[in-house]
């Protein structure tokens, strides 16, 4: 029995260690999960990309795009680290990257305020520092590449201004509390739509944490409580898709409008089918390209500081085919 316990404990420790190291994609060890870029070349720049989380599908997509884009730069080797949606862990990652003397650090902050001191440390250590998705403002010496969540929301809200019928009743789905992207998009909706359309009534509004299944359950219950719902206004595609599942095939809601942000493959398909009305593309590929170009320019001295945004193209049934092609080509849709 005693031996068994020890064996069990040892096995578990090994398993746990392996799991944690896989999760953290490297931790203190600079050899991480994804290393991209050619090794040879005169100067090799080591770049650390500290992602917000693996679990978040957009963050995962972005990390993959950045890794892929780095292949195009033979003088860059890229290591990806996972902040696991935890401020503590992400801060530690930044510190480790500084200690391991990376030439550049790109941070996708989980919480800008919490990460600020550590980002400042990176700048102080003369490391090229970029914040992306979201940008962390007011850090002297740091560059940034972002999509503006306010603009993303505004673009869709402006379209809704024309499309949503008079005296409409709508439901609103928000991301996790305190999430910068969610609040900014919601602010855009408020200013660009709700303030301008006092006739529209919000019958229900709640947090669905970016999750499709949570939104589905909420919408199922809402459709019973509120027999008239003319539009779904969601801060991201996942939640809109979930809400749409709830009313799928229900004649009472046949013409329901649905607005969201992100431009995920799922949303593109839904727009193609005519179920969803519009979304804004948050193009991870474009973000990645811009990030790599920026970091390369900074490392080679072409630029000293860059703050740039990607575009916010609106996707509707008019131009959806373009994006279907985009995703089919990249393999995300069949």
């Amino acid at each position, binding site marked *: 029995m005693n031996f068994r316990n020890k064996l069990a404990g040892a096995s*578990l420790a090994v*398993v746990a260690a392996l799991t944690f190291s*896989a999760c953290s994609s490297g931790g203190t060890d600079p050899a991480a999960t994804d290393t991209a870029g050619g090794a040879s070349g005169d100067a090799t720049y080591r770049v650390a990309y500290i992602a917000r989380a693996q679990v978040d*599908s957009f963050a995962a997509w972005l990390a993959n795009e950045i890794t892929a884009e780095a292949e195009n730069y033979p003088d860059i080797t890229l290591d990806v680290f996972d902040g696991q949606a935890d401020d503590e862990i992400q801060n530690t990652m930044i510190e480790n990257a500084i200690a391991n003397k990376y030439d550049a650090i790109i941070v996708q902050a989980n919480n800008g305020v919490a990460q600020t001191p550590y980002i400042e440390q990176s700048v102080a250590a003369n490391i090229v520092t970029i914040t992306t998705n979201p940008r962390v403002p007011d850090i002297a010496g740091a560059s940034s590449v972002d999509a503006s969540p306010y603009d993303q929301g505004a673009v869709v809200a402006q379209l809704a201004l024309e499309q949503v019928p008079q005296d409409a009743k709508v439901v609103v789905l928000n991301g996790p509390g305190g999430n910068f992207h969610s609040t900014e998009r919601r602010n855009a909706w408020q200013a660009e739509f709700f303030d301008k359309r006092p006739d529209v009534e919000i019958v229900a509004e709640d947090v669905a944490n970016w*999750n*499709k299944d949570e939104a589905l359950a909420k919408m*199922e219950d809402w459709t*019973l409580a509120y027999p008239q719902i003319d539009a779904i206004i969601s801060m991201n595609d*996942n939640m809109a898709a979930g809400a749409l*599942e709830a009313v799928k095939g229900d004649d009472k809601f046949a013409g329901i409008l649905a607005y969201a942000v992100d431009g995920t493959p799922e949303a593109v398909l839904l727009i193609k089918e005519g179920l969803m009305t519009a979304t804004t593309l948050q193009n991870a590929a474009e973000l990645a390209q811009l990030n790599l170009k920026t970091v390369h320019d900074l490392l080679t001295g072409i630029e000293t500081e860059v703050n740039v945004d990607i575009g916010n193209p609106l996707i509707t049934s008019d131009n959806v085919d373009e994006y279907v092609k985009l995703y089919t080509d990249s393999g995300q849709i069949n």
Partner: protein
Amino acid sequence: MLAKLRSTDTSRYTIFLILGVVFTIASVLSENFLSADNLTNVLRQVAVITIMAYGVMMLIIGGMIDLSSGAVMALAGVVSVIVYKDTGGSLVLAILAGIVVGVVANLVNAFFVATLNTPSFIVTLGMMLIARGAVLEITQGQTVLQLGDFVKLGQSSWGWLPLPTLFLAIITVIVWYLMTQTRYGRSVYAIGGNQEAARAAGIAVNRIKYKAFALNGVLVGFAGVLFMSRVNAGLPNAGVGYELQAITAPIVGGTSFSGGVGTTAGTLVGAIIIGVLGNIMNLTGVGSYIQQIVMGIIIVVAVAYDVFSKRGKRSKQILKPTEKELTDPIDGEEDSLSQRHDGPHKEVP
């Protein structure tokens, strides 16, 4: 009549009473609550959690626990979806794949818990991380889309009865049968009640533990298939926190953390109560944050009540009872030590 009423064991029926109270309050709070559509909704919504709850109920009765069910559910569901797409739409193979994933993960759990004697809390905690990592790795964090007819499982109905609810009903009967009409079920109660005594009575303790985990795997796997089918996507980050809800339902329904006690019906009622509470909060517009607080309170209260009721109550006795009172059965008086002389007591099925 009154005497008989007093001497019957009320604790068994308490849970149904609570269900009735919750239903009553809910119907007062919202006129939509008692509508056929809404009740059908609720039954459909609780299906996945309840199926998972049955699995962990079996384990808790047997003196173990499973913290990995949320993650394994997601893994099984995603694998099932992928298999469905890769085989060109074979629902049978997809369901099988999901179940196999659930079973394999749980057999690993069983190996550490039964053979190596490691506490199930730790083992399943580790499995939770492993399964979550696996599903994220397989999907690279991306949702699997274009499920086609896979959604029929979770979104269609048989007449007025949603399929998930039908599955839930069938599974409920099966689980009840396993726990009350098989040697396996009886053994699980015995092992949870006193593992050493069960062993000394000739029960193959390890084998039963493996079976319990395997059955849990089947249930969790199938729950995963049902979940993805309902949301029409292979979501790798699904089910976070589901294991806690799956544990709460049996506890609310009378299953005891100390093992050896619990019923299938109680778990079903517990799950429905939790589902109804979520539903009524949505119907009345109670926000997500408050809902979380309420759920937390329920968990704490349910466990506290579980512990409290097992300890027994001692009533303060100042009044000297009359002759009549002495000959009538006194109910509700329990004592913590072994010399109890109760009348018909709580029956464990």
